[in-house]
């Protein structure tokens, strides 16, 4: 049984109790993904599985046999930071940085959802296309809390990359 983390094949834990979060951090020493609440309430542990954002603290690692997992460590390339990483720096999208890996993975998942037309709680027309307004981004990112209150910068960074398409 094995998972693929940031493109590399890695073994699944032998104890099925190990969460995907603990497996990433303790088993694979990929400590970029953070443990905030460990109970689904903060979003710090958000990672992408086959491109979809999920909470790794409520996921058992054994459930992800053969799946592609992307963490914050997998985003930068040889050319440099991922555009969202750069935009978070540019727009002061963090203070302590603890929520940031989750915020960035979540924003990438959100972009894919909006692109395929997934509506949100604040979308007026369930049948229409999605425009990522400030209000839409705030609602769609509500699963990622920031204790430092950097939300304004977070929304601005996301808007800059996903809406204005300005490569940072």
């Amino acid at each position, binding site marked *: 049984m094995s998972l693929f983390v940031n493109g590399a094949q890695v073994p699944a834990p032998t104890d099925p109790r190990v969460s995907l979060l603990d497996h990433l951090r303790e088993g694979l020493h990929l400590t970029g993904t953070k443990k905030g609440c460990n109970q689904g309430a903060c979003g710090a542990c958000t990672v992408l599985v086959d491109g979809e954002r999920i909470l790794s603290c409520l996921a*058992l690692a054994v459930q992800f046999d053969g799946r592609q997992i992307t963490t914050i460590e997998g985003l930068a390339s040889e050319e440099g930071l991922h555009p969202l990483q750069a935009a978070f720096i540019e727009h002061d999208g963090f203070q302590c940085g603890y929520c940031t890996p989750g915020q960035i993975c979540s924003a990438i998942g959100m972009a894919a959802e909006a692109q395929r037309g*997934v509506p949100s709680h604040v979308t007026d*027309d369930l049948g229409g296309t999605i425009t990522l307004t400030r209000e839409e981004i705030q609602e769609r990112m509500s*699963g990622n809390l920031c204790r430092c209150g950097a939300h304004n910068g977070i929304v601005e960074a996301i808007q800059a990359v996903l809406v204005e398409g300005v490569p940072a």
Partner: protein
Amino acid sequence: MNPFQYARADDAADALRRGAISGAAYLGGGTNLVDLMRETIARPDQLIDVTGLPATIAETDDGGLLIDAAVRNTALAEHPAVRMRYPVLSRAILAGASAQIRNMATVGGNLLQRTRCTYFYDAEGARCNKRTPGSGCDAREGFNRIHAVLGASDACVATHPSDMCVALAALDATVHVDGAEGQRTIPFADLHRLPGDQPDRDTVLRDGELITAIALPALPTGARSAYRKVRDRASYAFALVSVAAVLQLEGDRVVDVRIAFGGVAHKPWRATKAEAALRGQTITQQVVLDAAAAEFAEARPLRDNAFKPALVARTLAAVLTDLARGEAA
């Protein structure tokens, strides 16, 4: 977390075979079960992962939809047929939890997430008849702002937390289950139980029974539906109360109305008394408030939650007047 063995079911028959063993539990997205296992409130010794079972949404011959239990909450909310024909269901799902949790959560798991309250979670500090039958209930005399006002018992005043289930109650859905005694269907309103003196049992499912699908009947022609949730913060919070409604008018008279409330009882609450009071009427604020009053005639509020009947009544009035004007989605 207690030790357990993990197996991934290939199909429903495989799941049922493995699930027949005492101490086994089915695993969906894990967003409720893994959390409860970590707190050692749930202690299964076999986990049968049912997320690999079929996950399709199919049209039925009677113009409805058949939704497999392994369909993820996001997939259901975004499905074109659900958005167009059952907006109340799309809206209810999108009002729940967070995008990450909706991506993980399955339909089966959403239905069977525990009816619960904060005292249920507080294994070290609080008595709870649902967690430990016979131990007492600290919510009754405690902080009970979020608790039930209808259908509660001395033993338990917890509420069912799902938004999706409130919509399914209003839509007259049917739950398809399979088990040792064969397949059966359960009307949605009968799936969840009131606590009575057995609050440890949330539903009428038998040991080892597997939810395989949910069937939605076609809505009456011209019927409109909507969901509204009232909560302490604008997003990512459980409902204080919520309202799901399906309304069919002829001229300005109500021909058919189906209403369910969330946050008021141990189960999604189908408001049949309010429905009866509204049939044949023209929707006005006062007519709806009176209908809600009929539903809450037997409400038994606790110290902190006496605001709920009036809040539900006003929310229902807002939802139905919007639907009557053709405004809500």
